[in-house]
């Protein structure tokens, strides 16, 4: 008895295949649409901001204080505030982040304490930024008595970007090959000497990339700053860090009230007067431009650094 043979004529196979191949092509088109659609939105956003705010993208805008008169308002105090805050953020996040990453990669034994630290770092990356604001409000502003100051703002943002710096540094450190470390240990170097003489110098590129990306994130953060009491109408600049008399450098600016670029934009966007919307657009264009520039620099640094070290 012959078993029934299912024979499928070649034509119908071919028809089935071409049907499925069409599906393939359709999906490719859909995928490309979504992909470039998303990117297009970024472009539209930037262009629209520039167009809306073009009237105000002038030198005057950069050098005037905010004002009740939309025409005269500027972002001087805002971008100075942002710069000063970034100084504090970088000064805190960089050493703490790099040190923590070095500890986790080079020193930490495989025990529960290390696991706890690593879980915490991962968890902190997912905490909403406004929670950092609440933390800072309760801890820095009131408990530590730092007040609503640049120092508090800088510390808050430093904590916010700490996971970014830690992760980037860990990756950079991990990329240094084991053989280099072994050779150094075999010559009698201590763990710190191996880290400082061999591991860190070759991780600088990756660390720098992480720092730049962290700062670009910090520049755009609004919520935590609002929570700790950023003001949006500051018509004066904090005292300059540099003075003309000894000791040529002062820290008074750390305890002054502050404003920042995203705060200023938020404040203007919230006003019904359309003239202020123009200001908001201009501020937004500048802010977005800065963010894109910093990310671009970070990508470039990462690219150059990868090419330089060929193990």
């Amino acid at each position, binding site marked *: 008895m012959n078993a029934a043979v299912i024979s499928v004529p070649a034509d119908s196979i071919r028809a089935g295949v071409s049907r499925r191949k069409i599906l393939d092509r359709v999906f490719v088109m859909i995928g490309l649409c979504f992909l470039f659609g998303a990117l297009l939105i970024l472009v539209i956003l930037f262009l629209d901001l520039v167009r809306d705010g073009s009237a105000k993208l002038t030198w005057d805008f950069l050098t005037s204080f905010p004002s009740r008169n939309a025409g005269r308002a500027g972002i001087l105090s805002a971008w100075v505030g942002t710069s000063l805050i970034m100084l504090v953020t970088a000064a805190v996040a960089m050493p703490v982040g790099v040190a923590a990453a070095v500890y986790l990669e080079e020193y930490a*034994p*495989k025990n529960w304490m290390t696991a706890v630290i690593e879980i915490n770092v991962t968890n902190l990356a997912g905490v909403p930024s406004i929670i950092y604001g609440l933390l800072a409000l309760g801890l820095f502003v009131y408990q530590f008595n730092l007040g609503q100051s640049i120092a508090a703002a800088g510390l808050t943002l430093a904590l916010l970007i700490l996971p970014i710096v830690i992760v980037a540094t860990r990756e950079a450190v991990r990329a240094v*090959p084991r*053989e*280099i470390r*072994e*050779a*150094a*240990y*075999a*010559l*009698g*170097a*201590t763990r710190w*000497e191996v880290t400082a*003489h*061999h591991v860190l110098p*070759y991780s600088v590129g990756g660390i720098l990339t992480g720092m730049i990306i962290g700062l670009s994130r910090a520049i755009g953060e609004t919520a935590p700053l609002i929570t700790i009491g950023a003001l949006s109408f500051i018509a004066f600049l904090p005292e300059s860090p540099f003075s003309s008399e000894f000791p040529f450098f002062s820290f008074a600016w750390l305890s002054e009230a502050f404003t920042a670029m995203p705060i200023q934009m938020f404040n203007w966007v919230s006003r019904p007067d359309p003239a202020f919307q123009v200001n908001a657009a201009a501020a937004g264009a500048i802010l977005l431009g800065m963010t894109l520039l910093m990310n671009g620099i970070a990508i470039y640094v990462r690219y150059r650094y990868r090419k330089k*070290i*060929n*193990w």
Partner: protein
Amino acid sequence: MQVTREKQDRAESSPQTVAEAPFPTEKGRSAGQIAIEMTRKVAPDEARAVKARAENLSFFYASVQALKSVSIEIRDKQVTALIGPSGCGKSTFLRCFNRMHDLTPETRYAGRVMLYPDEIDLVSRKVDPIEVRMRIGMVFQKPNPFPKSIFENVAYGLRVRGMRAKVLVEEEVEKALRGAALWDEVKDRLNSSGLSLSGGQQQRLCIARALATNPEILLFDEPTSALDPIATARIEELISELRDKVTVIIVTHNMQQAARVSDYTAFMYLGELIEFDETSQLFTNPSKKATEDYITGRYG
């Protein structure tokens, strides 16, 4: 620019085919015959003192025992080779001498490795591994120079020991490079990167780096398995010449290399020491059947 220079260096020092190599090919001759043909005219120096002695040394990776009670005597300023099939524990044994296992978590030593004349137990928990590594040097299987200049590579061990005087450092670097038979090739470009050298040169650089620190024992962990035959030959010649100046322990999976280069040979299998004897004896008249089976190629 850097890339073409690299290629040039490599082309100059390693001819393309084995046929051009100055060493004869090794087909069809037993290790014993080679040992007789190429044995150095000088026999091992019986009068040499014992430099180090492993006493019932055992080693554990977590709960796995990788070394089972190995006892070997290492003679001063002689070359001792460790041979055996893959996984027999020879590299594990070697790395006990400079406490490299301390870098791996969950490892444990048992037994002792006594270093003379100071009578220090190298694997004792009371002895600082840094101190051990200050006395014992190592050359690794894959050449691993630092991405620094040739000079800084060799000088690194000295700097770690606190040597600061520039003139002194330069002297020691030159001595070490001469000792590794590399000085003539690099003396004009001490500032170029260590990575710009060919594979064989890099390995000699690593040897120079270890020699600069005047180690009491110099460990070689399969130093030529990543190199071409010409470079291998030069390194073997170098090791032969280091005899009488430095105590050497070399691990090799190449029996003929052990026969060419060493005074004493230890054969290990599955973490145990099977036989230990003068090289010429071990290869021509092994006392254990397992040794004979291995060196005649019955298993590998």
